[in-house]
């Protein structure tokens, strides 16, 4: 079964990726699909900035502008940021704990394909009379009045991709609890693994409310129920609650893995262990817990009353405490270290002040009384772009450069990486810093244009020019990826030279079974410990033996594809199209048929035998 080194044709490679259950290949799928949607969402952002560059612009109409902002937000959160974060979780977390794969490899593949087909379905709305236009929060009072099928695409697309995320979360939780290598206690887990763990718990408890909200909206729009129809006794605030009970933990689902990536980068390039490891773990768990207590700060102006507003305001400010702990720990990690300013370290160093600025405006917004002034202005837009771009997107860029050699076996060019960084960093602050002031001066968010003489012209133009710099940064990075992939200079186990955790003890990319013999973990930064004692690699914790591996399967793809087909049937059934019900039934038959097949057909996986593993050793001289 030692086929991973052989050359394959395009068809065989494609089939390999369609059927793979290997966490490392699924990570690549997440990276490609998430990267694609990131570019789509980025183009939408560029259109927004072109429209707003000058007053009274008619680059897009008001209705189209609503569709673009809705799709920009929805795409970036659900289809770009989350999958990209999932890409790193899949690529790195099982290696960091010394596991052979995740707990449910089949479910892992299913999760990816559900996300992918949900995302494609949502974006196909552009080609079927209009995209969703009620904002990424899709408040029911707006969404119920939306004409066309945009909202239905939103509801069904997010439902499908949300299922994929949920099962992905369960998978990571079980993997981390059950499959750690010998000696890998909880308090020896790398911070990225810890943040994956807490994030997965947040996913598990945050996504069901979204599922319910989407179901209620689907019932209202498709089957004539009255959850959000006030004349029939309905109540649109229910949507706001359900959405934000999901939506607030969602932003921590995005930022915690970003914290994890930076918590790997600072020690590696400061060549010093992470300062305050246990307080970092504590802060991560606390942020995850508090993340569920603050959803109503998005609804201060809804009219929940002063008591509710006060409680949620205080809870929100409390999150500043564990986050502050983290900021200081990162600073103290760099302090006195022997710092190497690589591309990932550039992103990490820029992350601290950028994210901090977003955190400070967050505390400002938490003051409920003041929020009445900020609400629905560009101040809010500036705030959440500072935390999401300055935090999550910076981490995704940093992680891409850091883990690229581990995922693909070759380094990205450092000079181009730094050019990307400076273009994007300057562009980011240029775009969003001025938006704080636009908001304070009274420019409302989600408006498609403004009049001359309101004092918004120069600031909006500066903001739009900033977007050009960010776009250039992304283009340089894509160029970087292409030229380094063509050159394809192979690198060894530890290409940065200062890797601390288990993933750097493996070849780049690792063999499909990861560790030939499970490693013995003797402390935090397990690989660093061994290196400091002059050893080349990890000490094995078991004799060389047969390795049990899961079989590849096309069924995850088929299950997700069936739901994709069924969603078209459900959606067009609203127009009384004759073909819609058969399409719905066929789609569900495909899905449930594939699930049934999976249930009744035994799948024991296969064993890689000891002799083959020994042959691999001789062929490639790989030590794992």
């Amino acid at each position: 079964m030692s086929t991973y080194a052989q050359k394959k044709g395009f068809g065989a490679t494609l089939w390999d990726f369609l059927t793979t259950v290997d966490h490392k290949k699924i990570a690549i799928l997440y990276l490609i699909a998430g990267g694609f949607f990131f570019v789509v969402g980025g183009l939408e952002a560029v259109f927004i900035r072109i429209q707003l560059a000058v007053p009274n612009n008619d680059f897009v109409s008001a209705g189209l502008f609503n569709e673009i902002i809705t799709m920009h937000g929805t795409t970036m959160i659900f289809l770009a940021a989350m999958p990209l974060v999932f890409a790193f979780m899949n690529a790195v977390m099982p290696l960091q704990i010394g596991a052979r794969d995740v707990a449910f490899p089949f479910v892992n593949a299913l999760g990816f394909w559900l996300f992918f087909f949900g995302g494609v379905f949502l974006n196909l709305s552009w080609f079927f009379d209009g995209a969703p236009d009620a904002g990424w929060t899709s408040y029911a009072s707006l969404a119920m009045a939306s004409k066309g099928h945009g909202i239905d695409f939103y509801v069904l697309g997010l439902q499908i991709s949300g299922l994929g995320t949920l099962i992905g979360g369960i998978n990571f939780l079980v993997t981390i609890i059950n499959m750690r290598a010998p000696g890998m206690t909880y308090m020896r887990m790398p911070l990225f693994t810890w943040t994956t763990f807490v994030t997965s718990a947040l996913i598990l408890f945050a996504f069901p409310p979204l599922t319910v909200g989407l179901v209620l909206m689907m019932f209202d729009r498709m089957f004539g129920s009255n959850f959000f129809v006030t004349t029939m006794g309905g109540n649109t605030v229910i949507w706001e609650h359900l959405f934000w009970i999901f939506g607030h933990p969602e932003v921590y689902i995005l930022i915690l893995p970003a914290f994890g990536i930076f918590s790997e980068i600072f020690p590696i390039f400061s060549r010093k262990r992470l300062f305050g490891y246990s307080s970092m773990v504590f802060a991560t768990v606390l942020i995850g817990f508090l993340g569920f207590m603050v959803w109503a700060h998005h609804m201060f102006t809804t009219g929940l009353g002063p008591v509710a507003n006060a409680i949620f305001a205080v809870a929100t400010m409390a999150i500043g405490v564990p986050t502050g702990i983290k900021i200081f720990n990162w600073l103290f990690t760099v302090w006195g270290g022997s710092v190497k300013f690589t591309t990932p370290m550039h992103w990490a160093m820029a992350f601290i002040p950028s994210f901090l600025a977003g955190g400070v405006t967050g505390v400002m917004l938490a003051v409920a009384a003041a929020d009445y002034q900020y609400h629905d202005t560009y101040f809010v837009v500036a705030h959440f772009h500072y935390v999401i771009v300055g935090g999550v997107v910076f981490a995704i860029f940093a992680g891409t450069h850091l883990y690229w050699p581990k995922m693909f076996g070759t380094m990205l060019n450092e000079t181009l990486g730094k050019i990307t960084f400076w273009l994007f960093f300057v562009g980011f602050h240029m775009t969003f810093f001025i938006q704080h002031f636009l908001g304070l001066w009274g420019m409302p968010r989600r408006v498609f244009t403004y009049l001359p003489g309101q004092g918004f012209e120069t600031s909006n133009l500066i903001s739009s020019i900033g977007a050009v710099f960010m776009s250039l940064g992304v283009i340089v990075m894509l160029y970087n990826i292409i030229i380094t992939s063509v050159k394809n200079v192979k690198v060894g186990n530890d290409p940065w030279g200062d890797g601390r955790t288990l993933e750097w003890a493996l070849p780049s990319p690792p063999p499909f079974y990861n560790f030939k013999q499970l490693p013995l973990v003797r402390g935090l930064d397990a690989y660093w410990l061994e290196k400091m004692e002059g050893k080349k690699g990890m000490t094995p914790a078991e004799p060389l033996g047969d390795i049990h591996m899961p079989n590849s399967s096309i069924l995850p793809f088929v299950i997700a594809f069936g739901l994709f087909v069924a969603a078209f049937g459900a959606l067009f059934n609203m127009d009384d199209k004759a073909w819609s019900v058969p399409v719905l039934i066929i789609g569900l038959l495909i899905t449930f048929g594939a699930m049934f097949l999976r249930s009744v057909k035994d799948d024991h996986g296969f064993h890689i035998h000891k002799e083959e593993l020994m042959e691999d050793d001789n062929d490639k001289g790989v030590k794992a």
Partner: protein
Amino acid sequence: MHAEDKLTYETWPAEPEKSTLEAKNKFLGFWFFLGGETVLFASLFATYLALKDKVPDTTHHLAKDLFELPLTFVATMLLLTSSLTSVYAMYHMKNFNAKKMNFWLVLTLLLGAAFLVLEIYEFNHYVHEFHHTFTSSAFGSAFYTLVGFHGGHVAFGLLWITTLIVRNSKRGLDLYNAPKFYVASLYWHFIDVVWVFIFTVVYLMGMVG
């Protein structure tokens, strides 16, 4: 131990649902899944409580006019008993007795099916006697969604356990299918617990206004 091992009554482990790595993963993963399901039902309960008795005008019936305790009491007893029979089934699973396990599982299925029949009768009754439908009011939408989601879970459970019994009828128990039976029974307990809450929050609290 491995899933493919051929076992006898003597070598059958004490906790067959957790004796291989795959089984341990399945066991824990399913508990997490039920955690997510709990939040799902909590959201539906919250929606129901917010929309209870919210009707467009006074011609519509409210919870206190609709519900009758005898019917829901029988339904509750059927489902609670089916949970008990599934416990017996798992007792025999742990004792490597596939025949007796199947007997108790079939009994579980019959009780679950009877519950579902009662629920269908009940819904039909509300629709025809009281014109309380899915689309008649926000109260109707919330009621049928919450109770219907539970009913859907029962129906799925029936199909699932039936598939398990049919698939494994010839080959008896092994460490590959024992965890499957075990998580199916966990699921069955879970929908039973949800029903206890529905019985309390929807029916009992509905009766007292």
